[in-house]
């Protein structure tokens, strides 16, 4: 048993943290996160050069990481800085390409940005009710349908798109030019897109892809949980500082016992969130991966909402303002519950294990 990071991962974390502190201080971050293209292409390239995309990819596929703890360490640092760069889409793409044994050199180098179209309006969190379809053509396939909430899609060069082929989910590759991309910024910063496929040409990456897609979602959930832990730590530090400095009625507000006990409750939930994320990271690539990541995401959906709402409430008005960093952490913590399965959806997956 060892809860220390390996030397390699500590270095990865330190490097990324230093870079983000330098380039993504909160004011810079918000300018980038809320103006098209909702990330910074130059910085994305720099991050790839620092090895951050490669850290998500196993050595067997040309990267230098890709385990649950690599993913967790990287996303925790991203979360602490609220970094809007499209790492989530990159991770999802990498896992699908890994399942297909596809070359990931351009993903690792950052030369090409990938995004994954999974969700649909009527099937936001599960792949059991996808409506997009693929049709065979002479030399390939054509896709029809609409993919929603394609993270990083507003700035992607290439899409991996899930559509039904002979009734089963399959994954296709399509150039950005081959589909209609409606990009937008997200309320918590960063960008996404709706992707419209109207008999759009594509190549097959993977058929009968249910297991591969579940694997990608599992890794994505772990990443979001780790990101939440980083963001919760940062929000909590801001709150703690405020409790020690802000005065009301002649004393620091941290001296009020009602606030103290509520703050302790946040601490407990953050520690529980950290623990369940460790459990999910350790389980990734094992037989319990999906269940543990569902457990992690449902717990974190609860914890992150509590931390976000209580951070605002205990602060008072100041945390309701754009210019105060805690407000941005609160937004991210709330909105990541909407990604890849919310707290109820993931709880339901845990429940399903009782009757499976």
């Amino acid at each position: 048993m060892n809860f220390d990071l390996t030397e390699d991962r500590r270095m990865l974390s330190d490097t990324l943290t230093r870079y983000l502190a330098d380039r993504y201080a909160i004011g810079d971050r918000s300018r980038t996160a809320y103006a098209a293209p909702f990330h910074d292409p130059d910085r994305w390239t720099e991050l790839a050069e620092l090895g951050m995309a490669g850290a998500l990819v196993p050595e067997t596929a040309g990267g230098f990481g890709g385990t649950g703890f690599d993913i967790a360490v990287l996303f925790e640092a991203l979360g602490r800085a609220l970094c809007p760069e499209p790492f989530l889409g990159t991770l999802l793409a990498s896992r699908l390409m890994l399942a297909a044994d596809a070359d990931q050199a351009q993903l690792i180098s950052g030369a090409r940005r990938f995004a994954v179209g999974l969700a649909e309006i009527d099937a936001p969190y599960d792949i059991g009710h996808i409506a997009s379809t693929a049709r065979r053509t002479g030399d390939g396939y054509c896709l029809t349908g609409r993919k929603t909430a394609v993270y990083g899609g507003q700035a992607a060069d290439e899409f991996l798109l899930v559509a039904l082929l002979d009734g089963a989910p399959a994954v296709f590759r399509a150039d950005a030019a081959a589909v209609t991309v409606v990009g937008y910024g997200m309320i918590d910063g960063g960008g996404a897109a709706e992707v419209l496929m109207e008999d759009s040409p594509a190549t097959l990456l993977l058929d009968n892809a249910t297991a591969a897609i579940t694997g990608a979602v599992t890794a994505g959930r772990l990443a979001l949980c780790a990101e939440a832990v980083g963001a919760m730590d940062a929000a909590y530090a801001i709150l703690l500082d405020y409790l020690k400095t802000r005065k009301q009625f002649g004393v620091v507000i941290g001296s009020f016992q009602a606030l103290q006990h509520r703050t302790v409750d946040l601490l407990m939930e953050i520690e529980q969130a950290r623990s369940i994320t460790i459990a999910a990271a350790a389980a990734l690539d094992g037989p319990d991966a999906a269940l543990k990541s569902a457990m992690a995401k449902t717990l974190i959906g609860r914890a992150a909402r509590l931390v976000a709402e209580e951070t605002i409430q205990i602060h008072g008005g100041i945390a309701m303002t754009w210019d105060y960093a805690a407000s941005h952490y609160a937004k991210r913590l709330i909105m990541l519950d909407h990604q890849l399965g919310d707290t109820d959806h993931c709880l339901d997956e845990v429940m399903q294990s009782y009757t499976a």
Partner: protein
Amino acid sequence: MDLTFTDHERAFQTEVRDFLATNLPAHITAAVRAGVELPREIYQEWHELLGRKGWLGATWPREYGGPGWTPVERYIFDVECSRANAPRVVAFGPHMLGPVIIEFGNDRQKAEILPRILSGEDWWAQGYSEPGAGSDLASLRTRADRDGDHYILNGQKTWTTLGQHANRIFCLVRTTQGGKPQEGISFVLADIDTPGIEVRPIRLIEGGHEVNEVFFDNVRVPVDNLVGEENKGWTIAKFLLTHERTNIAGVGISMQALDELKALARRMRRKGRPLIEDPLFAARIARVETDLEAMKITNLRMLFRAQKQGHPGPETSILKIKGTLVNQELRDLARRALGPLAAPFPGSVGETNLMFGPENSETNAATYFNNRKTSIFGGSNEIQRNILTKTMLGL
């Protein structure tokens, strides 16, 4: 026990409904339903509409141009307006300064100020909170130093809601330094265009411009603009903080939000069926609906007491807390119902025919974040719990 309204009250309810059905323009209700920030013109149109009908100064006695409503009638009016998707009345003139002038103003002030509120000519802003004095209002530092027939105002106010639209402002200022925090405070009026006053926007969490900072730099205000006695402003502040509010729980707004939530949950789909058939989501709706159902009765009990005893009891604090919790939970569920479609930052989607969710849902997440304010402003829920500790627990 009898939970039904009297015949008279039911007739009044019908009158309000008919009035709203006939007079409230569709472009106003559309804007309210869409959940976006309303422009000044819409508030103005609504105020003038009510002003003409004699319903703007809802709490004012008839002699000052109010409708002379009972607490129950005011409650009915509030609920019906919410149910009809009318805008809120911007409270600062009609519901705050008006009653203050009626209670504390002199005859000249009554004659000058009250009609201009009812006509919509004046839009008042509130200058209460300061950066260092939020819930702890008594520690305010904006000062008004006497200089002949004028006060010289220096300092800063904040959280001035819709102050960007106002032409006048009422302020709590410190006219005497030293002494107890509550002493030496005065209640003073000013025109926003007085030299030295600057209104700066505060951008809120969801990106909107709803509140402002107001800076006072050697602002000269006539001493005539003092309301009540000099140094006795705390009395007015307390009057305003405890001023009767018949619908502090926002019952109508929450009823409307619940209806919209159910409609949304019928349209959104999860795992091949409507979201409202998802047991975990339906349970969330059922829980908050039950709370709201109870809160309606708690509200009516408060009205009954207010009507019988002439003043509401300390349950107003209960209603403030529960009202915000219920409202915030409803906003949470509406956001949650949209799933990933809640993500877009309003305005960040370019020209497109694409719907990102059911009609009017694109502001749901922003509304959720914005409404976190309700448990903070007007005496935070923590302050309300402190009040209840004293008044109801006797601790």
